[in-house]
């Protein structure tokens, strides 16, 4: 494929940790990455935001003043001391729903990334490792998936499997799997052309061993970066699906659902739609800042500059 040729055409860097050398991740290497990440101001901010949401999600029942589904008060109450962020159209506490909503967002983001990574990763690895006809076949399937409009695919899957949060995660995962297949395949092809792979073959290492010992560590960086970015895409995709009524089921507090139904009250009761919007924006922002910083930290060629 063309992009592969592009990669090879570029002059090779002579930095000591060239990506052509087997990057066997060692302890001090990890420390190095973490250190660089912490020094990266944006990355630090992003990481903190994501961590904050993680804490929010884990400790939701302890922090939230109300249950996310109970309807304790009158509808559309403005923010007050009882309801810090006001109440929604059912009289539910918006703050509590946002706190519990972080669980759904993280869950959807996390699981759909894992699904995409699993399906796409395996396809990409197999294609890049075996090359030839296997590669051709897999890449045709990937092409088909790419040619298929993503939004439409997610919606159709949600219809077929029945709308639920599980379906949403699965559908989002499947739709983004081809992206991972491509992300994984390229570097795998490069790694497979290296001499140390040839060496491993000569000493009789099995395919599994070669993949686990040599290929995976060397392609980890782009995967991690892509996974972080996809995480945020998945959070937004869930919001869109829920907006269309095909994602999280009522009365569960999904930010997307809150935003979708709150949109109707943006004029009379703006707090209903603003806060979930802020939550999504913050989360996506955090994930992207983290992803960018990870990219910088993990990419050897960017270190010295």
């Amino acid at each position, binding site marked *: 494929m063309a992009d592969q040729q592009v990669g090879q*055409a*570029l*002059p090779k*860097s002579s930095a000591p940790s060239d990506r052509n050398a087997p990057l066997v991740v060692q302890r001090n290497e990890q420390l190095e990455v973490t250190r660089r990440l912490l020094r990266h101001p944006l990355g630090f901010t992003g990481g903190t935001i994501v961590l904050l949401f993680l804490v929010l999600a884990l400790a939701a029942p302890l922090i939230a003043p109300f249950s996310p589904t109970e309807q304790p008060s009158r509808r559309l109450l403005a923010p007050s001391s009882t309801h810090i962020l006001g109440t929604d159209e059912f009289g539910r506490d918006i703050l509590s729903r946002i706190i519990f909503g972080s669980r759904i967002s993280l869950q959807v983001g996390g699981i759909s990334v894992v699904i995409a990574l699993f399906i796409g990763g395996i396809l990409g690895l197999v294609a890049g490792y075996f090359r030839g006809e296997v590669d051709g076949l897999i890449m045709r399937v990937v*092409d*088909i998936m790419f040619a298929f*409009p993503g939004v439409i695919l997610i919606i159709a899957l949600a219809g*077929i499997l029945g709308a639920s949060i599980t379906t949403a995660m699965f559908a989002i995962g499947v739709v983004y799997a081809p992206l991972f297949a491509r992300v994984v395949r390229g570097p795998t092809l490069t790694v497979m052309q290296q001499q140390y792979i040839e060496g491993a073959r000569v000493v009789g290492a099995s395919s599994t061993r070669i993949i686990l010992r040599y290929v995976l560590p060397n392609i980890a960086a782009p995967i991690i970066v892509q996974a972080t970015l996809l995480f945020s895409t998945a959070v937004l995709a869930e919001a869109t699906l829920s907006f269309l009524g095909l994602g999280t089921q009522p009365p569960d507090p999904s930010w997307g659902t809150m935003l979708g139904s709150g949109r109707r009250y943006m004029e009379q009761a703006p707090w209903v739609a603003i806060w979930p919007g802020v939550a999504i924006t913050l989360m996506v922002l955090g994930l992207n800042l983290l992803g*960018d910083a990870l990219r910088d930290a993990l990419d050897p*060629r960017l270190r010295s500059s």
Partner: protein
Amino acid sequence: MGRYLLRRLVLIIPTLIGASLLVFVMMRLLPGDVVDLLIGSELTLSAEQRAGLRAMLGVDQPWYSQYLTWIGGVLSGDLGISLRSSQPVTTLILQRLPVTVELAILAALISWVVAIPLGVIAATRRNSPTDLFANIVGLIGLALPNFWLATLFLLITSIVFRWQPSPQWVSPFEDLRTNLQQVIMPTLTLSAGMIAVTMRMMRSSMLEVLGQDYIRTAQAKGLGDRMVLISHAFKNAAIPVVTVMGVQVGNLLGGAVIIEQIFGLPGIGWLILNGIYQRDYPVVQGGVFFLAVAFVVINLLIDLTYAYLDPRIHYG
């Protein structure tokens, strides 16, 4: 070059067949058919009447015979007839094509015009306040769900400015001014989400190229003007960005559904989505097929632009 092109063209065929089969099977897996939708949830029709309607619309045939009929039609340039509106699917697509293409191209252009310079500047002034600013601007656009942004646009323009464009879409060739008024809000909304992606791609690609030996060597030797170097690096750095651009335009053709709905500019995405809701098989099949063709063609064109951008690539 000729052989490469031929090979690519041949590979398109299985892709299109695969996509059409996929959409075909998916539509039939969806519970309910067009007659259910015709009847609705309120009506109580006898079994005889339901069977009669299914026969009238031809959805009582086995699926493989429906597929063969359909693909046979496609080969002779006929995408079929809508089961709900009785219009040829080709007509329905052509009715929506101008809006869809205009939105996609304008949104992409706006995002590129903003994102590419931002990306280049961010890369050349890495870790400076400018870099930070560019980053945040791009990311906020990405992080705001676009249906939310669209609603905000509607509220602000109608409440503060008491203004809305003329509700009925006018072709830019007929009345450019009215047309631009109509597409400004949807294209801005759509492009907001794309800026960050292109900008970040541009930035990292640029950084990569700038970090490479030949540039650094050239700089170290004090050779040449910095601007010349940057413009030289830019050409190389643009290659991966162009790939993303192609995918973006392809996605916009079918993926602007919610924005199309909110701004009342029905495009192809909206056509397909409603086809799904109405179980209007020919519309969904035809629409997806059309988008798949468009996507494949755009990607082919992009691969060909590589050859222009990077003379080191030779297709053989």
